[in-house]
């Protein structure tokens, strides 16, 4: 296994810039995810690393070897595709042995290496079966085995779970995560699904319109998104983004929006004061961070907002509630999107709260994020951004 470095990588198709000045490092033994919506440049990046697509500009390094000009076959990369791409007429054993056979590896070595991989992936019992009738999950495990057997520098996972049924998806996700940690596989995972990326990867590079938005550990992305795009892409249900204003109130930074007034502590307030260009901000609040009480308890207390439940969505062990926020006097929402002017709150479920119930809510200020209303940049991050 090797480490991977992308330096100022660019890809242009005619006038369309698919990847713009991408610099990324993947540590040896690390799984790095490339995450973003369709058209964000993640697949173009994967293809350039694999060598099946030429680069327009920049460099690709495996350890201290520059590989950008090498043919795909010379890069020693293994790929795991969305659709498994197994040889349907071969047995499990022969599919995994295939990359060794075409390299004229001797039979004894093939036998030992394939046996090791079969054991690692718990495929020993089906070694002699044909692959045609196996479940999608089993077929994908065989494809992973075929990738592992040749000791590649790097494994590229291209949406490896998207063809699987829900239960097999969850099962294989766990297996890949464990395998990667136990074996220390240098791997790059391309996915549009944020739950897959956060569950499996050590670090995630979030991309949008060809531009890297943030690269960090999953928990950091979740707690401290660099901008509005990352904030709304990571997390389910998504973060509430509510327009508001920030100002200095006698030495304390205060954020105000729809009846909420949050006074930030010195550390967060200091960052906001330092980073803020204009008072127009967007307040980012995760649905599970809102504190909710049924009834009208605490009404009138500072920081407590009286609200009404507009909609309840039962989600098994959680309920997601949509709550009305106070509107400025006399205004009526004309938005087609009936979530506008409301806040999403997640509580343990199934709860007894129903649509129409009165509730009070409080937003703890230590968990909020504050974004610039124009640039979308998170104004509460420490200097390193």
């Amino acid at each position: 296994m090797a480490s991977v470095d992308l330096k100022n990588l660019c890809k242009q198709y005619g006038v369309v810039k698919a990847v713009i000045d991408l610099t990324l490092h993947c540590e040896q033994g690390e799984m790095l995810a490339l995450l973003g919506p369709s058209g964000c440049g993640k697949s173009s990046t994967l293809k350039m690393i694999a060598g099946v697509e030429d680069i327009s500009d920049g460099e690709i390094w495996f350890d201290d070897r520059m590989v950008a000009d090498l043919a795909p076959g010379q890069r020693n990369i293994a790929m795991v595709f969305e659709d498994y791409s197994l040889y349907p007429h071969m047995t499990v054993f022969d599919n995994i042995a295939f990359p060794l056979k075409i390299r004229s590896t001797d039979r004894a070595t093939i036998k030992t290496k394939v046996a090791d991989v079969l054991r690692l992936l718990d495929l020993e019992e089906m070694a002699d079966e044909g692959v045609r009738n196996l479940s999608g999950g089993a077929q994908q495990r065989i494809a992973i085995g075929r990738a592992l057997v040749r000791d590649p520098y790097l494994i590229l996972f291209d949406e490896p779970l998207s063809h699987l049924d829900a239960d097999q998806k969850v099962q294989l996700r766990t297996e890949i995560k464990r395998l990667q940690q136990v074996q220390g596989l240098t791997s790059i995972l391309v996915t549009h699904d944020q739950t897959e990326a956060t569950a499996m990867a050590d670090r995630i590079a979030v991309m949008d319109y060809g531009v890297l938005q943030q690269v960090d550990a999953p928990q950091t992305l979740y707690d401290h998104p660099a901008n509005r795009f990352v904030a709304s892409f990571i997390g389910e249900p998504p973060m509430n983004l509510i327009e508001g204003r920030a100002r200095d109130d006698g030495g304390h930074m205060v954020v105000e929006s729809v009846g909420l007034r949050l006074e930030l502590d010195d550390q967060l307030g200091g960052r906001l004061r330092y980073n803020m260009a204009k008072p127009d901000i967007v307040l980012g609040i995760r649905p599970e961070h809102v504190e909710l009480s049924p009834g009208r308890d605490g009404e009138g207390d500072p920081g407590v907002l009286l609200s009404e439940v507009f909609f309840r969505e039962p989600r098994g062990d959680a309920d997601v509630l949509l709550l009305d926020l106070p509107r400025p006097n006399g205004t009526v929402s004309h938005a087609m999107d009936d979530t506008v002017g409301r806040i999403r709150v997640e509580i343990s479920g199934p709860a007894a709260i129903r649509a129409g119930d009165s509730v009070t809510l409080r937003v703890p200020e230590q968990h909020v994020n504050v974004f610039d209303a124009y640039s979308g940049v998170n104004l509460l991050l420490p200097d390193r951004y």
Partner: protein
Amino acid sequence: MNDGQDLRLDGIVKSYGETTVLEDISLTVGPGQVLGLTGPSGAGKTTICRLISGIEKPDAGSIRFGDCDVTDLPTQERGVAYMFESYALYPQLTVADNIAFPLRSPVNKGRYAADEIERRVREVLDLSELTPLTERLPSELSGGQKQRVALCRALVQEPAVWLLDEPISHLDAKMRNKLRGSIRRRQIATDRPTIWTTPDATEAASVADSVVVLIEGRIHQQGAPEDIYLRPVNTQVARLVGDPAMNLLSGTLRREADVLIFEHEAMNQPLPPELDRRIQQGTHDSAIVLGIRPAAINLHDRDRPANGVTISAQVYAWEPFGKYAIVSVKIGSDLVKIKTSRTRPFEINTTIPLSLDADRLVAFDEGTGNAI
């Protein structure tokens, strides 16, 4: 077409050759209600939609829209808005024209003026955030965008019944989140029934007034969304519900003094009196399956073991999701999933102490799989 009519299926049977795909299906969807039809792939969800729409005929049983028996009516006389899982868009028509198509069809001749069609199309385009793509052709759309067009083409109609076959399965998480709620709110404001199929039981629960769990052509459970989660009728339903689904461990029962103990290769779990009483009434077999919800397992600090620790487990994998994490552990040879709010990492292959939230345990008969 009567307003406020329900949809009723009675004793529907359907076979293809020797294979029975639907067995005695009876269900009712009230006006302005959403029925969530869930089950694994191949359960027969799409076949039910095809029968209701009239594309296929049942071997036995009846389909009624209100007082009207439509079992033998041809498709075009039923007035069903059917969103196909395969989208089936017209490749030569723009997004707007695809959506307007059913309103302009001969069946609706003279029913909608041009400006009314435009207003209706605009409303569903806005709802699904497709407005910027109005003039595109299907070939210029991503898979998720095509699915939203197909959804709009069904929603735009005023049918006797809506059939939405996996309407949001290919959308990204954010769009799924938004549309789940906004479609439900739109549908319950009408006076017609809606069927919403999905392999995701949590999605079914979140959009429906009642949920039907279909497995291998048979209805296993029908009930309110909370019922399916809290009281799965058998292990097959329990395996489908929850994110992640309930853990199911086989073991035997033993009585020690006054306490009923669940014996498993790697744990001895005392059962609470309430469960004990139900087991006494429910089964005389000593073999049971214990259902343990992923969120009903307590993780303890290795250095400060708390009371009630009964299990020692090995960490198999750790998957974080921001606000919670799923820890997979081995209890004996069983793989058990735990949902925890602790977001610090767990080291693979370390041993951790656990205890079960005994009041939230569920028991199933080992032989039949039925809930006790």
